[in-house]
């Protein structure tokens, strides 16, 4: 990130100026599109240079898609693709007579693609205005104008005592403050609990907190990564909307351990229900004295601001997320420096996934040993939320222990596939995760075991493709997503994903050697896990489904 731009943002933030992204989003919401006058106003109000604001306005999907009086966003995520082969998208395009990203001549309706809405349990999903509807007949309802908010299945825990699927009660923070646990002691406990990041990288949270604690800065921040952009994943959505207080408690504990004074939750704009839920919980927490000055008489002060994103998958990467939070283009920055040393406004910042933070209150309340006991015998401590896509008989969010068999998860917990179909392959952890063929379903569900299969645990979404889905189509779908979401900074990803996508577009045979070279370039050369991770599923397909890929 530009040090100078971060400094300018910091100075204007101190004067309560809005970010440029805030102002631009407001303009789009008001009038459906952006003009240069909007950009100049955003520059004047945010204190950023006009050129910088122009750059921001051309990066985020929410700012680029023109909106008609009726704005229809159709999900083109992997779960919806697995459900319909994107037939629902084609149906809407031909029915409205406009392309994705276009507005009708008379301005009455606009169609945009969105990835993903978090309704993967009921794919396909469509957002009509602010109503998210989903299900096999959703297209008909959209065309009839009778969309209703789709129901979401209740979540379940397979643990003897649910940890993540019950409401938060601030008992962790209460114990720490009432018993006068020193911040260093809390940090030690969290480190001993070996909480691995749940967002995908699996980095130990305690270690990250330790770096931030050790770094110098006038202020420190906790940022919750609520940009759950992986298609097929809706775990954080459930956490933010059903137990937002648990997330806030986790953030407060992190702040206490690290010495931070304020927290931010970056919520993706594709989850319109999450921000209100979090703000309501924060309001309640303030009333109850769990946020604000002198929490519970301890002298510890902490509060949280919820910020909405603007439509970019890469913003889930921690440095891009911080850029977005500051209203800049959501591009990835080289590390070092790491956010723990220099993050938001150049200050030490902990960026943790929502689910990771939701694990912290239990450790604070019950200790590291109890936490490790949640997954007895497994390599990873704590519990994990997993979610299943619409192909399964019983989709939804489930709390499980690490180390259980993937087959058990798919066939017992989620009931196998509906309509008697069979699992052809699973993509676990998101679009950058490897693909597990049905033959390998007995793999234990844990970080290392899955990695040995060229797969990743990632964020824990389990997405099944059934026998109707062509793996070449899957490759094309994933690469199209990858290329569209590339932030454009590093050369391998910016150009390489475009070339890879082109290889699978149309019917031309794919030259394997050229593809392998491209995959190596992406894997070894990319600046972040977006370009770096895209080869994994393609490599799985090459290994397990070479005949379906149309190789030369």
């Amino acid at each position, binding site marked *: 990130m530009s*040090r*100078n731009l971060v*400094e*300018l943002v910091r100075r204007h933030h101190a004067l309560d100026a809005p970010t440029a992204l805030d102002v631009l989003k407001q303009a789009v919401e008001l009038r459906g599109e952006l003009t240069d006058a909007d950009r100049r106003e955003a520059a004047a109000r945010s204190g950023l240079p006009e050129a910088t604001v122009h750059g921001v306005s051309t990066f985020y999907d929410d700012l680029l898609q023109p909106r008609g009086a009726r704005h229809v966003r159709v999900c083109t995520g992997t779960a919806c693709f697995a459900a319909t082969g994107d037939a629902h998208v084609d149906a809407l395009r031909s029915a409205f007579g406009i392309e994705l990203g276009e507005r009708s001549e008379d301005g009455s309706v606009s169609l945009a693609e969105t990835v993903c809405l978090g309704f993967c349990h009921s794919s396909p999903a469509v957002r009509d205005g602010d109503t998210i509807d989903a299900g096999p007949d959703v297209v008909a309802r959209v065309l009839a104008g009778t969309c209703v908010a789709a129901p979401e299945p209740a979540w379940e825990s397979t643990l003897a005592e649910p940890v993540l699927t019950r409401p938060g009660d601030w008992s962790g923070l209460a114990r720490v403050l009432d018993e006068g646990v020193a911040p260093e002691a809390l940090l030690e406990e969290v480190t001993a609990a070996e909480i691995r990041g749940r967002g995908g990288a699996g980095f130990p949270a305690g270690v990250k907190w330790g770096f931030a604690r050790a770094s110098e800065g006038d202020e420190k921040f906790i940022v919750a990564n609520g940009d759950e952009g992986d298609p097929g994943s809706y775990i954080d959505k459930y956490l933010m909307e059903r137990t937002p207080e648990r997330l806030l408690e986790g953030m407060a504990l992190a702040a206490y351990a690290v010495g931070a004074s304020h927290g931010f939750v970056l919520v993706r704009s594709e989850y319109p229900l999450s921000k209100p839920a979090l703000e309501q919980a924060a309001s309640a927490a303030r009333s109850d004295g769990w946020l604000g000055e002198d929490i519970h008489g301890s002298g510890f002060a902490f509060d949280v601001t919820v910020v909405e994103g603007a439509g970019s998958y890469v913003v889930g990467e921690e440095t891009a997320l911080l850029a977005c939070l500051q209203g800049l283009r959501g591009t990835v920055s080289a590390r070092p420096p790491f956010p723990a040393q220099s993050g938001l406004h150049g200050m030490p910042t902990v960026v943790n996934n929502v689910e990771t933070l939701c694990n912290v209150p239990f450790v604070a309340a019950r200790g590291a040993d109890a936490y490790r006991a949640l997954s007895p015998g497994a390599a990873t401590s704590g519990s994990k939320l997993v979610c299943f896509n619409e192909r399964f008989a019983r989709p939804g969010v489930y709390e499980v222990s690490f180390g259980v068999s993937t087959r058990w998860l798919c066939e017992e917990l989620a009931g196998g596939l509906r309509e008697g179909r069979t699992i052809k392959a699973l993509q676990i952890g998101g679009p950058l995760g490897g693909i597990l063929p049905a033959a390998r379903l007995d793999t234990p569900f844990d970080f290392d075991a899955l990695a040995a299969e060229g797969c990743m645990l990632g964020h824990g979404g389990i997405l099944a493709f059934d026998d109707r889905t062509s793996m070449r189509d899957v490759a094309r779908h994933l690469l199209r997503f990858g290329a569209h979401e590339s932030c454009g900074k590093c050369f391998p990803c910016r150009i390489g994903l475009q070339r890879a996508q082109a290889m699978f577009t149309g019917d031309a045979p794919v030259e394997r050697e050229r593809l392998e070279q491209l995959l190596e370039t992406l894997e070894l050369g990319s600046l972040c896990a977006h370009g770096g991770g895209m080869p994994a599923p393609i490599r799985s397909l090459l290994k397990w489904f070479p005949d379906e890929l149309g190789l030369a």
Partner: protein
Amino acid sequence: MTTTCGYCGVGCRLETHVHDGRIASITPAMDGPANLGHTCLKGRFAHQFSRNRERLATPLIRDARGEAPRPATWDEAMERIVAELTRIRSAHGPNAIAGLASSRATNEDCYAMQRLMRAAIGTNNIDNCSRVCHSPTSYALRKALGLSGATGSFSDFDHADATILIGANPTEGHPVVGARIKQATLRGMKLVTIDPRRIELADYGVLHLSPRPGSNAAVMLGIAHVIERDGFVNRAFVDARTEGFDALLELLPSYAPDAVEAISGVPAEGIEEAARIYAEAANACFSWGLGVTEHKYGSEVVQLVCDVALMTGKIGRPGSALLPLRGQNNVQGSSDMGALPDTYTAYRSVEDEDVARSFEDAWGVPLSRRKGYTIPQMFDAAVAGDLRAMYIFGEDVAQTDPNTAHVVHALESLDFLVCQDIFETETTKHADVILPASSFLEKSGTFTNAERRVQLVAPAIDPPGEARTDFEIIKAVSRALGHELGWETPADAMDEIAALTPDWAGISHERLGRRGLQWPVAPDGTDAPILYERSFTRKGGRAHFAALPYKEPGDAADDEFPLILVTGRRLQHYNAGTMTRRTGNVELMDADLLEIHPDDAARLWIADGDRISVRSRVGRIELPAQVTERIEPGHVFTTFHFPETRTNLLVGASADVNTSCPEYKVVAVDVRPIGEEPAKVPALAGGA
């Protein structure tokens, strides 16, 4: 070819790229100490003037006043010059002749010129344009500290925790230094800007103060008051290294922030905060420009700036420096070279027997001990009939000096005027002989930048047609007048300078290399990035506090002239625009505009872009208005880049009490829209 830029006092090192004998492009030198691989649109792009068809390419002689000049040979021009100057000297004495050295020309050119005037003609009537910009700085720094130059380098901005920038707009006047200051502020340096206009850097600083033009002294005294009151005086430093503090102490009680607010219009809290920011910084710099010096009491304000730095001991170490932003590329050097009526090289008085004798020995002729005329005195003397001839090189006094009417009158009163320049100018209109000279791209020698850094200049191309380098011309004129300068090359001239000037002892072209040297340079070549680390160069080694009360400026707004005009520069053009107007820069800015605040504009029924009339006690001009919030109500601002505007018609005779630097920054004016038919010729108020 690597050379040094000929535009402003930053002294960017540049790489010139030549194709077929013409400049194809100029790029910044990565290892330039002042510019570090950066430069501005003037040094980078504004070089097309070098091949502009209006370049003087042959000598010109004007046979009679009012006629157009005609081409002549060098021999003919030389004969005419020798004949006239000799005649005038016989009839009226050597002091009836004066010379003006160009602050754009090299150290060697200026040294040659002052030697010509002193040895070939026999007078100390030699001056340079620092007179109208930083002469107050030179005077004050010598008086307070000892040496006439910045006490540190531009790199001190990088090491400072705070800086007070007063009366300068470096993002326009010294772009590369302005950029450097801006980067420092973004890294956390606390910048306080003091200027009637809200300059660009004010948006990056922590505090901006907008004093009434002419009230800088009160502001500085207010800051000094707060520093003393709140216990920030560095007593150890004051006692060990200064003298005269008690006199200042007696003055300070009258300048409490409230009193200063009444005088300057700056809120008392602003004075308090500025003082605190400066005093609490571990290291802090002061930087100033012509907004401090071009005032009636400019030299006093600079002394007060020194007072504040001395009170807190913030001088003589990295990050704590006094950095006047010298305007021209070699205004520092032209004065260092003694192209001044009262000093030889390194500011040693013409009245000093030992110094005068050393030059007499070196040059083999007796030299006058009598101080010569300053530029304003030259014009007064011309009008009075005491000055009969002038030899001006590289300066357009008719456009850039104040009170144009008086200047023109003076030039027309002379019997003989020689101008040596690269283009015809407002001044050459009055010349009897015009000699075609060289630009910075066509000569070799050295420039001294605002950091006292002497840097090499290397020619990239030849002067056009029959034009010659200034060095060769001055040598030829001196020889023709009977005084052989005896140098082959400018390097030889520098060797003489080094031999006769202790502060320059270690300087030679060979030693300067790519990075130059900051004087004083010891005989072994050790240079001086920081001055006064252990002692000041005044007698006794102590710095001197000046106790100077605030006094009113030479002009003030009243009912008839209710607004105050400040004149200055913009980014795209350089001073008279002689060079920049002949480059693509005119596409970026093609006229002088009068900046006026929306409140004043509304009151006067002036819309943005309207043509307006501006009238002062001595003159009237017309130009378009630019309505902007960057300026405070009550003030207006314009530039002097375009001769057709004749901005300096407005500026009167008020000047610095010690150095005669004109008060360009405080001119009371009346501004109003003009009718449908603007006057064709600007009229003078109250007669010529």
